[in-house]
């Protein structure tokens, strides 16, 4: 018993402590920024899109060899003796014409392994991180600064030199420059800085509405081929009947109809129907079918009921709003009908215990 209360109190207390934490956080300023309008400041060593400064590139191929995913593609052509390609910014003399320098930035894994081996620091990572494209082919960045004709020219010179060498050595000829890719010679992409009616009163309309709901859904209950549909139509029938009870002035009975029938019995029925396996494939048919006796029986019954309904003198009374039956019912249950009330309670208790013991297994 003590354990029980302790558990309850402990639960409540820890919940309140947690609530205090979240409440305090409501007054802490937000830690997020509103991205496209406000951008975070990136540190200096940030690794984003690559850029190659072709003036400094000596074509040593170190970056391409260091790359773990082989995203850098370099081709060079030796210059003929006598040609001056100039110096890089840290004084190295350039000896190779770089005819192809492609970086497939979609393959790049941003590991920076290409930056470290470069002797002239010509390849480095910029701070551009927004470079989405529509076509996949636009991800292959081309950094070469020579025009197509110049490339052809260099290669021709080289080839002649080689041919001379070869001719001197009588060896086979080397292949000339291959065709350039369709990409024009814009040197890569520059780094930039880159969201009633006349006679009908309200009550008549309501009555006809509820009556229609009851009748129509009752018809569907009986004629529907799908058991689940039939069960749900029963729901509407009960609801309609509750409405009619209200119109008759039995308000408490209507509420109880809703609570017990709709909220209890119908839910039980629906659970039972839904859980039964393969319920939608069962064909609802009776074994025996004697149409003639059935027709005679139904006809007799309809006739009798109809005759009674049509021949009775239905009283039309203009009454005021009936008063609530709640207090009267309450009193009567406890004073006049108390024995029946208690017996019903015991009956329900027995049913409850029986159900619980059956479900225990």
């Amino acid at each position, binding site marked *: 018993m003590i354990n029980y209360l302790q558990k309850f109190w402990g639960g409540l207390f820890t919940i309140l402590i947690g609530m205090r934490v979240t409440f305090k956080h409501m007054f802490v300023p*937000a830690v997020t920024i509103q991205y496209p309008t406000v951008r975070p400041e990136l540190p200096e060593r940030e690794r984003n899109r690559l850029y190659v400064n072709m003036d400094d590139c000596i074509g040593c191929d170190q970056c391409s060899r260091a790359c773990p995913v082989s995203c850098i593609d370099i081709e060079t052509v030796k210059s003929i003796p006598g040609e001056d390609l100039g110096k890089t910014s840290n004084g190295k003399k350039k000896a190779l014409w770089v005819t192809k320098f492609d970086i497939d930035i979609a393959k790049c894994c941003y590991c920076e392994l290409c930056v470290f081996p470069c002797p002239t620091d010509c390849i480095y990572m910029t701070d551009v991180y927004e470079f989405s494209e529509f076509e996949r082919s636009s991800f292959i960045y081309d950094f070469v600064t020579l025009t197509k004709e110049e490339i052809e020219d260099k290669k021709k010179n080289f080839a002649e030199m080689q041919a001379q060498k070869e001719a001197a050595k009588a060896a086979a000829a080397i292949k000339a420059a291959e065709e350039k890719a369709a990409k024009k010679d814009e040197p890569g992409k520059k780094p930039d800085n880159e969201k*009633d009616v006349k006679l009908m009163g309200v009550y008549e309309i309501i009555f006809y509405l509820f009556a229609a709901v009851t009748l129509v859904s009752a018809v569907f209950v009986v004629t529907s081929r799908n058991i689940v549909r039939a069960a749900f139509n029963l729901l509407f029938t009960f609801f309609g009947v509750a409405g009619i009870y209200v119109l008759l002035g039995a308000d408490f009975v209507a509420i109880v109809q*809703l609570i017990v029938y709709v909220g209890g019995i119908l839910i039980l029925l629906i659970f039972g129907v839904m859980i039964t396996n393969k319920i939608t494939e069962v064909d609802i048919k009776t074994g025996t079918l004697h149409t003639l006796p059935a027709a005679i029986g139904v006809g007799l019954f309809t006739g009798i009921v109809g005759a009674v309904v049509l021949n009775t003198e239905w009283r039309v009374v203009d009454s005021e709003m009936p008063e609530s039956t709640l207090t009267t019912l309450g009193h009567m249950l406890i004073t006049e009908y108390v024995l029946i009330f208690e017996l019903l309670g015991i009956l329900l208790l027995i049913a409850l215990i029986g159900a619980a013991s059956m479900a225990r297994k």
Partner: protein
Amino acid sequence: MMYDWLTEFTGSEIIAALIQGWLPLLLFVLPFVLVAVLAERKVSAHMQDRLGPMRVGYHGILQTIADLLKLLQKEDIIASANDKKLFNLAPLLVFAGSYAAFAAIPFSGAFIGSQIELGLIYIVAVTGLVVAGILMAGWASNNKYSLLGAMRAAAQIISYEIPTLLIILTVIMITGTVNLYTLSEMQTGYFWNWMIFGGPEFGLQKFLLIPFMMMGFLVIFISMLAEVNRTPFDIPEAESELVSGFHTEYSGMKFAMFFLAEYANMFAVSAIIAIMFFGGFQSPFGYLGNSLGWEWLVPFEQFFWFTVKGLFFIFVQMWLRWTLPRFRVDQLMAFCWKYMIPFAFVILILVGLITVL
């Protein structure tokens, strides 16, 4: 009453009834849901150190309207194996169940949908329609997970109706009426006349009742949380376990109806708790209108206080949602049957004894 005034005004009972039926929906529930959805996102954001919607409108005020427009133009997907009639009917039933409760709630001294004598019991009965609607939704989705979610939701709601009813019985015992309007009217005066402080009659009974009223408030608050499927009782809509439970298969406007129904239900439940224990539309300090002599101001003031109390409880519900993890389904049931119901019974018996003495 508003109904009589409307009948005089329009000259016809039918039109008056129609207006009375539609008015709470248009004027209150819909804008309220718009505000509530946005409030939930903003409250959750601030509790989590972030900002929430900021772009649409000033600081995101128009976000819900954008969401509504988006949902309206979404494709209505109905799988071929679904039961079309039931599938289409389910959201309507759920919404009808939540909205029908508003008929009996007094928004202020002058406006109440219907002065039904059995106010509280009527509300409990009508939320049973919500259960039927949920079952229909789960079944018609033709999806194992949805069916599971729907069954759990139904079991949860009907189990937690019991402590609710028991505490309602307790309040009936003290006040002698279930009519929500009379219940609110009884708690006039200052805030120490509210039911949570023992009721309007001064005396020994009032002071003895205070701890029991507080515990009863706690029990009914927790049970109402379970009835509207909010965390920690949100197993039917648990995203990480059942991918949205019984409304997985719904898209577009029908999903919006489920959403609307949940928030309308939340408000109905907050309103009931406010009426039962915190004085309904009564102000805690007396009326500005009365002291200034402007009698017509009083109903508006009452409406203001009613909304404030309802919104406060909604804030507490949201606060709990973002603080607590969720219960497992069998723990949920155990909690109801082993803790809530015994407590509710004990409170009932003891309060009964106190009122008799």
